[in-house]
């Protein structure tokens, strides 16, 4: 049933550009899709391992900058050495964005998972601020506040078919959709595998997970790597779609947007970030004509508090509970929080 629903939804997304010609709406869908990928990557950490990455925009932004710089080329002086980089094709930029973001995820995870508790949150949020400062101050490399302009459009090179540059909205829409579906499948397979079960186990009860021989820190670091790499992929798509990036990309408020997508949709569920992403990707556009940005963020803040108080598991688990009360197995979240009812046999 749920599988059927997912397939219908996918078919809907696949045929959407055939009947939706409005370029502005397509543009909204593309950026929504990019942020949904980022939200999915955040969900892998927040939802499945219970670790909140509050600087997720850093990985997204690093992906964007790496990809843009790889394809634009740069020359910088570090001490007595000069590094000159000639422009490379976009595909290489994308791959490097994924690799370098993943490497950053590794370093951050390796360091902050030495200690449990609030450390990962604090390290990630500080990391995002530092990366923003570097993007702002290393003008030789990043142009600082002047922004990187004229980033080339995404170009797919298929062996035997030559290179196809994705001009226009429709090809970009399909590119983002393809990456989103790939990310979804990757996360689905990952959380269904031994690795995913280990992640959930350590979220539920870390001491127990350790006692059955799960190397908890290793799995946490692995989750951080994959999550950061996916966020980097989203960042690369973003850079080549909007074609201009500046240090504003590292603003905390974008992380908040990702967090609210995951929390509202339902952390620890596969569909949660997709639903949350669609809602919070399109909502600002609808609100924009009525509300200033400050009001939008205040609304986000209120909504975040509202969700935690009223729907702590998010929209997707709540709806599923309504629709399929019997067939549904409790999400990992529920297992941890549901208390046994009094007087009933377990």
């Amino acid at each position, binding site marked *: 049933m749920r599988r059927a629903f997912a397939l219908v939804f996918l078919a809907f997304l696949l045929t959407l550009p055939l009947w939706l010609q409005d370029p502005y709406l397509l543009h909204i869908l593309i950026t929504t899709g990019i942020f949904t990928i980022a939200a999915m990557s955040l969900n892998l950490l927040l939802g499945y391992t219970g670790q909140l990455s509050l600087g997720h925009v850093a990985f997204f932004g690093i992906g964007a900058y790496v990809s843009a710089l790889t394809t634009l080329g740069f020359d910088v002086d570090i001490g007595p050495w000069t590094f000159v980089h000639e422009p490379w094709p976009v595909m290489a930029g994308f791959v490097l964005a994924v690799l370098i973001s993943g490497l950053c995820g590794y370093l951050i995870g390796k360091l902050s998972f030495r200690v449990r508790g609030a450390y990962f949150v604090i390290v990630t949020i500080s990391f995002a601020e530092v990366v923003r400062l570097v993007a702002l101050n290393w003008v030789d490399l990043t142009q600082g506040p002047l922004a990187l302009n004229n980033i080339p459009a995404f170009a797919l090179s298929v062996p035997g078919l030559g290179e196809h540059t994705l001009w226009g909205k429709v090809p970009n829409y399909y590119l983002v959709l393809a990456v989103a579906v790939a990310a979804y499948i990757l996360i689905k397979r990952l959380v269904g595998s031994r690795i995913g079960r280990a992640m959930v186990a350590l979220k539920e009860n870390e001491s127990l997970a350790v006692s059955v021989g799960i190397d*908890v820190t290793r799995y946490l670091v692995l989750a951080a790597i994959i999550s950061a790499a996916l966020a980097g992929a989203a960042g690369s798509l973003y850079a080549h779609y909007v074609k201009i990036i500046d240090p504003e990309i590292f603003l905390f408020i974008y992380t*908040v947007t990702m967090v609210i997508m995951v929390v509202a949709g339902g952390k620890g569920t596969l569909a949660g970030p997709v639903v949350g992403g669609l809602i919070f990707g399109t909502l600002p556009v609808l609100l924009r004509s009525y509300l200033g940005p400050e009001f939008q963020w205040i609304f986000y803040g209120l909504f975040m508090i509202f969700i935690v108080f009223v729907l702590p598991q998010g929209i997707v688990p709540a709806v599923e509970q309504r629709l399929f009360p019997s067939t549904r197995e409790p999400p990992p979240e529920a297992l941890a929080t549901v208390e046994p009812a009094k007087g009933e046999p377990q």
Partner: protein
Amino acid sequence: MGQFLQHLVNTLILGGTYALLGIGLTLIFGIMRVVNFTHGELYAFGAYAVFALSMLLGANFFLALVLALLGGMALGALIEIVLLRPMRGADIDTTMLVMIGAWIIMQNLEMLTWGGVAKAVVTPFPEVPLVIGSVSVSYLRVFVLVMALVLIAATYFLINRTKLGKAMRATFQDADTAALMGVSINRIYTATFAIGSGLAAAAGALLGPVFLAFPTMGDLAALKSFAIVILGGLGSITGATIGGFILAFVEELGAGYVSSGYRDAMGFVIIILVLMFRPTGLFARAERIG
């Protein structure tokens, strides 16, 4: 050498207010296990309160400082009662989300109220700096340092010498046992959050006139408080006090001898070094090492 002395003096002045920020945050974390993301906004609140009272309403500058501190405490108590009390027993991630929500709301309310332009506070202190040898420092900054030290001392006295402080320490060690001994945990939590918030507001009220008041000032203050608290050890008041001065020192040296653009990155460098070499901070009670 003269330049180095100047950096040392600046360190003392900045460090005092950083210590206030750090103590406030570490108190709240240590006793309540809440990562207080509104801390920076209370700092901004303090700065704006002084601006509003002394520049717009014409109140005496010193009275404005006191009112900013009291206002910060009241605001903190309100946040605790409205947002945190219903969340008792929730895990740390859940309260974190609520505090992030509160953070965004507060910051954007500031933006709406005061606009994006920075506000300057005029103080009754003479503009001419005090010059001793090769070091020059404004009277306002000396006053800021003295006030910060007074507040730090007051906090130590409160924690170590009063009945409330004893109850707070008991709650810090074991909330359940403290409750069994007749400590009203709800009141202790509200008092803790109010005191921590008041310290942040006081830091903002003191530094606001030195620098400027602007809506995003709270973000950096929050990040710096986090760095101080990690350096000192989560929950350690002594650690936060010393951590505040260390961060100020490193920032001063970084800005003076490396690059002023990276002044605000020094906190992160400290966090990384602490996690590499002493993950529990300088004065930590035992945290689990994974």
